[in-house]
């Protein structure tokens, strides 16, 4: 009477997904790869130095309104490829053996030793972390050693940040290097704004720039909302209005009406400036790390945003935080805007990349997922759409973004390696699960007790995968099966 092929019925099956590709041939995986491959250049690993050290694609201090709306171009092109896995391994091993050439390593998370230092020696995770790193045979010298040499070695991490950020002209390379392993709370707001290219490196220009940008946004927001809600784009405003109360609803801060109004303004203003994508659900989640980080200097050094009283926040403070959040959200989204345009091609492309990456790292897992009828889009879509913000606490997300901001393409390219590391973390559990268990597990992985250590472990593993697999399409061991 009946067939026993449950997967054909039970899931958005290969059929379902392939129909999507059929309707959207322009986003078909093959094209994605052709494009990516074309843009790759074989260069020596030493040249990675240049992209680790290079400033963000958007120049600091430039008026946002001068920037093109779409910046998909920033996703490609600027980042060189690397030699094959084998040659990179050889390269790393050669350096480890003693032929250190201080300028050409560039293969470790900057300042890796301090990860090891901050992690307790007795912590299993820290041992895992060290093991991960030593597996790579990473040399302690790295591409940024030259700049690090400018700082006295006996400074604490906190002092290093103080020194860098108080200099007349912040060395952004050095800031990136330090930030990779996490930014101290009290320096985070400023460091993020510099890393994003919102705040100028040059101290003498900062005050003026901030004043101008804040005024620009606040004047514009005031004007936009001056005629009341009825004058707004009703569909857009409705969507934002129902999503803002659902944004980090566990946080006292984000439940407050004053903050919700402020978030709504940021989202609305961003959306009408970016009609190609407009507001897309999930972007609301992406403002929250900026908001809490930029608010933190005003509510005490280490104050928990959950314990602050938003009703007591003066409006001028909210205006500043709101303006800074708007500009920084813009900077972030400029780099990943095609995640949110029609049919979300950026996400589609990254899901294909993630699947291929995981297949190369752990073919057994992808085979198992496939045998159960699991498609990567079923679980990874949200991971990419919301940059894993939904999977981690806000506090952990903030730590993760320290590293993302220190990476050149943290939110687009590096994020895929983080997603891979995140998925692979559960590989043993997943390979014993059936379709239903897999989907339910992956849509809510058990991360509620995660600390910064767990995040740092994932980030380090991601870095390792990036080092080993980035730009090595010739090492694909399998082919597309769908």
């Amino acid at each position: 009477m009946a067939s026993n092929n449950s997967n054909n019925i039970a899931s958005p099956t290969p059929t379902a997904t392939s129909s999507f590709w059929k309707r959207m041939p322009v986003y078909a995986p093959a094209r994605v790869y052709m494009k990516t491959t074309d843009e790759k250049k074989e260069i020596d690993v030493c040249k990675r130095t240049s992209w680790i050290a290079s400033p963000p694609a958007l120049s600091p201090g430039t008026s946002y309104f001068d920037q093109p709306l779409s910046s998909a171009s920033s996703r490609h092109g600027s980042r060189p490829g690397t030699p094959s896995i084998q040659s990179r391994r050889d390269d790393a091993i050669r350096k480890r053996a003693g032929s250190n050439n201080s300028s050409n390593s560039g293969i470790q998370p900057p300042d890796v030793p301090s990860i090891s230092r901050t992690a307790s020696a007795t912590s299993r995770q820290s041992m895992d972390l060290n093991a991960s790193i030593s597996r790579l045979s990473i040399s302690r010298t790295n591409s940024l050693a030259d700049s690090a040499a400018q700082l006295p070695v006996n400074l604490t991490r906190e002092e290093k940040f103080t020194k860098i950020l108080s200099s007349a002209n912040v060395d952004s390379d050095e800031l990136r290097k330090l930030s990779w392993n996490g930014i101290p709370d009290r320096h985070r707001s400023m460091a993020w704004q510099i890393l994003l290219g919102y705040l100028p490196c040059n101290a003498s220009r900062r005050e003026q720039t901030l004043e101008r940008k804040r005024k620009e946004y606040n004047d514009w927001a005031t004007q936009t909302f001056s005629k009341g809600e009825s004058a707004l784009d009703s569909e857009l405003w409705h969507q934002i209005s129902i999503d803002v109360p659902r944004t980090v609803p566990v946080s006292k801060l984000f439940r407050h009406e004053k903050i919700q109004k402020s978030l709504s303004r940021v989202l609305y203003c961003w959306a009408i400036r970016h009609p190609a994508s407009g507001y897309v659900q999930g972007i609301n989640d992406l403002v929250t790390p900026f908001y809490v980080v930029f608010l933190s200097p005003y509510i005490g050094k280490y104050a928990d945003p959950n314990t602050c009283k938003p009703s007591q926040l003066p409006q001028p403070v909210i205006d500043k935080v709101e303006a800074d959040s708007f500009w920084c959200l813009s900077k972030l989204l400029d780099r990943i805007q095609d995640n949110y345009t029609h049919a979300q091609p950026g996400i589609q492309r990254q899901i294909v990349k993630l699947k291929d990456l995981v297949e190369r790292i752990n073919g057994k897992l992808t085979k198992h997922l496939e045998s159960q009828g699991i498609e990567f889009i079923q679980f990874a879509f949200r991971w990419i759409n919301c940059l894993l913000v939904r999977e981690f606490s806000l506090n952990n997300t903030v730590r993760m973004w320290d590293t993302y901001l220190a990476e050149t393409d943290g939110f687009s390219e590096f994020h895929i390696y983080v997603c891979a590391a995140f998925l692979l973390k559960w590989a043993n559990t997943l390979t014993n699960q059936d379709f239903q268990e897999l989907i339910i597990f992956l849509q809510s992985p058990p991360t509620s007790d995660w600390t910064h250590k767990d995040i740092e472990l994932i980030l380090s593993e991601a870095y390792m995968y990036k080092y080993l697999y980035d730009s090595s399409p010739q090492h694909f061991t399998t082919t597309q099966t769908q």
Partner: protein
Amino acid sequence: MSKEDQYDYLFKVVLIGDSGVGKTNLLGRFARDEFNMESKSTIGVEFATRTIEVDGKTIKAQIWDTAGQERYRAITSAYYRGALAALLVYDISKYQTYENVERWLQELRDYADSNIVIILVGNKSDLRHLRAVPTDEAKGFAEENALRFIETSALDNTNVDEAFQTILKETYHALAKNQTAEDKQGGVPGQGTQIVVPKVDNDDESASKCC
């Protein structure tokens, strides 16, 4: 697969409708008897499952809860394929969400199988003082379009089980009817839409169940 997970039929069901009408909480109520005041917007799709009995048969519903925002339509419509049933949800306190039901029906016509069974669900019936969509109007619309109809409240747990039970029963009966017709015509048993899970007593499979 554990023993309690054995079933006679597996139905794929989709939950669709405008953003904010309460799809996720309807599913949470049906699948886990939960209502979450702090639920977040659904990004892409989310999944849950529950098994019920219909006419002595065990039916497992695998339900895909979809994001309501237009931008996600390209992603979510891929999940319509193969779905045997759809719950098309609107909010009785927001007339716009009821008006958009037409658009959702069109989505189903475009992307779902033509014989998909649909129930129109007016959710948030607890918001009596804010009602914007009269019951009779929605009922009339459902009749005109050959849809089943029910009003629910995921918040106070009114009619939620009934909504899912109704649609699953209807789906089962439609299948059974088709099956009889197919048998009479000598069609291939079970082709395409239903499954019978082998009644296995496999210890390995039971052991693999972990959550």
